[in-house]
């Protein structure tokens, strides 16, 4: 069977997210506050990212002038953190996100 004609792309143009990025301080001069956003409070299986952030915290304090840490746990790992939780990181020089398992 022969057909002739244009075919329409079913994939659609990728929509670019124009949301503002968090401000970049551009330096590692202390004293710094670092944030950790962990995906799950007490995982029953898989990696324990809370423990991972504790190890990272020690490294940051040792290598950089990190003097304070903000640590938050999302109540539901599959959903974005809420506005209030995100606001708690506003004073941080950087935030480390927990990975999904």
């Amino acid at each position, binding site marked *: 069977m022969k*057909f002739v004609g244009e075919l329409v792309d079913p994939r659609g143009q990728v929509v670019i997210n124009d949301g503002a990025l968090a401000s970049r301080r551009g330096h590692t001069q202390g004293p710094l506050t670092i944030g950790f956003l962990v995906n799950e409070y007490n995982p029953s299986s898989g990696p324990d990212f809370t423990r991972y952030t504790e190890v990272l915290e020690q490294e940051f304090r040792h290598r950089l002038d990190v003097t304070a840490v903000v640590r938050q746990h999302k109540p*539901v790992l599959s959903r974005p953190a809420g506005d209030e939780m995100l606001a708690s990181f506003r004073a941080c020089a950087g935030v480390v996100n927990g990975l999904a398992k």
Partner: protein
Amino acid sequence: MSLITTADTVEEWVELAHAEGLTDGLPVYPPTRAAVDALVEASGRDPSQLLGAIPPRGGAATVEVVAANAAMAGCRSEQFEVVLTAVEAMLEDRFNLRGVVTTTHPCWPLVIVSGPIVEQLEMAHTESVFSGGGAHANAAIGRAVKLLLWNAGGATPGEPVKEVFGHPGRYAFCVAESPASPWPALHQARGIDAASGITVFACESPTSVAMWGADDTPVNRLAQLSDAMAIKGCNNTHTMGETLVVLTPNEARHMAENGYDRATVQEQLWQQARRRIGDLLSPGVPPYAWWPDWVDTSDPDTLVPVTERPEDIHVMVTGAESIPWMAVCAGWGNLGGYAVSRALDG
């Protein structure tokens, strides 16, 4: 709109579509300009109207792009509005489409069509309803949704989809509620004031619950169903969220004849579909953070319901008029995929 490829024959197109990654293994129709325009025109919408970006890839689901995928699925003009409405519903934030599509869990958006439009579109609602029932509309609508999520959303196995086992509904997952239900249509029960409507809900394939050993009293029939709703390892059992139960038309009528409306069924299931906390957690495993505060996690004999509220147990009527039978389609738990209902014309 763009010219993506050329093919001189349909056969050539079928192989090209596979090579280009535009299908999941099943053959697809070519999304010709004529076919796409016909669907767009039937919708009465502007082809450039943006429904939203389909996660995780973020492809823009304009009416035209949805029509292209619907054309590939073999959708007919009169079916297209159902597809558009279902996509709009899935794009609501509470549905968490990104999570539903990419999760390790075997769930997929089920499109439930209810009301007079079921018969207008000649949708199947009796035997084999969850496998399409042999009806063009069930298959085409479910397939159109799948292809959109595949092509615009980039929902391909491995990367980024991490689904461990898979779900047969990922080929096509659309059912119709029975016109023979004794209760209001599902979308109406959920507050949509329209004769016809759709409900999308991310769920597993149906788990069959035959009435072996159960007498014909509603309470014992529902007890049988409750047991299947609260199995260990089910996301609802461990995290709550929403779930879907399915009653055949004759089972629903039997309930109604005994004074049960949908709310009564929901309440009774909510009371019965529970699991002892001590049975759910191995020694040393702490209780889950997403159970509400009124669940006494300090007592191992606490019976935890599979949903936080009775109304989170969605009750649908469909399937064959046959021997006593029910089913449960477990949800994704408290991670998303929550039911969203919308009105349809017709």
